[in-house]
């Protein structure tokens, strides 16, 4: 959905969005990585299972909740990427007893 301008940032970091490697600029958040990866969902809602993507990118809406490095319910627009970070779609409500 978004693309990083080649001129804009020097350093990039490799992360894994739903298992696929994506290179994103340093300073990007996990939510930005999902938007650059071109996914059309970052979570499925707990109530109806509807797909969502980030809406506000500034920590207000919580529509970017995702599973990051095995921990569910992370506000992905607030989490800067780190090398090798694994970002996965969150399916519905977090499973109690799962990691995190």
């Amino acid at each position, binding site marked *: 959905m978004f693309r990083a301008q080649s001129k804009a940032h020097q350093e990039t970091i490799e992360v894994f969005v739903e298992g696929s490697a994506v290179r994103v*600029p340093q300073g990007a958040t996990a939510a930005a990585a999902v938007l650059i990866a071109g996914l059309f969902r970052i979570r499925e809602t707990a109530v109806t299972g509807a797909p969502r993507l980030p809406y506000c990118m500034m920590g207000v809406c919580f529509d970017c909740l995702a599973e990051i490095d095995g921990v569910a319910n992370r506000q992905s627009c607030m989490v800067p990427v780190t090398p090798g970070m694994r970002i996965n779609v969150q399916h519905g409500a977090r499973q109690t007893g799962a990691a995190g």
Partner: protein
Amino acid sequence: MTYDLAIIGAGPAGMAAAIAAQGQGLVTIVIDEQPAPGGQIFRGIEGAAAQDRTLGADYAAGATIARNFRASGVEARFGTTLWHLEPDDEDGLCTLSLADAEGTDTLQARRVILATGAQERPVPIPGWQLPGVMTAGAAQIMLKTTGAVPAEPKRTVLAGQGPLLWLLAVQMLRAGAAPALILETRPADRIRENMGLATNAIAAGGAGMLWKGAKLLAEARLAIPIHRATTGLRAEGDQRLRHVAWDGGRFACDLLLLHEGVIPATHVPMAIGLEHAWDAAQRCWRPMTDERGATSHDRIAIAGDGGGIGGWEAAVASGRIVGLDQARRLGRIDEAGFGMAAAPAIAARRRALALRPFLDAVYAPGAAVLCPPDDATIACRCEEVTAGQVRAAARLGATGPNQVKAYLRCGMGACQGRLCGPTVAALIEETRGLPPGTAGLTRPRAPYKPITVGALAGLAE
């Protein structure tokens, strides 16, 4: 460790307040959720974006503020979330409960400045929950922090109104990713109706800002198709956005960026029970403050857009004034000293606010933005509660958002009512025939942001 002053938020107001307070000898700490200073307006200002000239001179000005903030040596904790604030602890101080990557901890401060800024006003049009519908601010954050633009500009549409919408349009244009279409929602005669306010603004020193805005509009209008006085906006699609539609038109797109202005982030001030008032000019709630940021609680002050929208230049001036007033209240300077030190900032704030009444009037959000007319529109994105459900609850007797929360769970989801609060209140007011701003807002509770039980348990060790 006990601090004289804790400042929540390292945006323009928080940074300016910290520099001013530290300069008067207050032992000060600044706390911010982001990994670096800047707030939302200057997101990524210490990164590569500072060299990106397409973002404009106002953004570049943030680099100097951030540099001065770093040079002041004020203690700062980034990547740290305030999840509880007790303004009356057993020691007669404020206790702040914080969470970061390491876990949770607390600190005490004699006084607190909330410089938590603004959030974008919710734009609850039909389909706004679809993947591909975002705020204009979200796209701007992608530019600032990631150097990223929409991948398919020809399938990208901006819709709404306000200075940020035009700024983003021009930033995208300069980055070679101009949106295919702008759907402006401002009614046709708004500028003509408010020429008196424009004249006042010029008399008060706002000519420069007016000129800057006019140039921005002209640059966008030359390059981007604009549909004016748009009504009936809706996002269409099944599992994702496919079209944006309006009264009389439809356009295929996969990214729709909405904007209807910004409103104070009232979450923390509401949670600690500060008195708030409905701002009829800005159509939003804001904490009640005096001109030095003092609130209804003796130890808590508010600086910047969190106390009413004024923009970054007003926020810097406000931060300085409020920071100096904390030094006065702690006995570091007297009233005369405050007057001398704060005078330039008071004048600067007056100039920075000169254009505001004109902007508030010209870009006032329409009734449909405040209160979605279509019952099927989602009001609460977290719990997927529609406008029709809120109206039905109000007809059953719910008098305010706190009752509707108990009926329908809106405000109980992850965002805790940050996004649905204003819409739910407006729907109740409409249904019950109440004037705007009388139904109140949801009272948020700690933790202000979700924390894990494990992190909470760590506090007891």
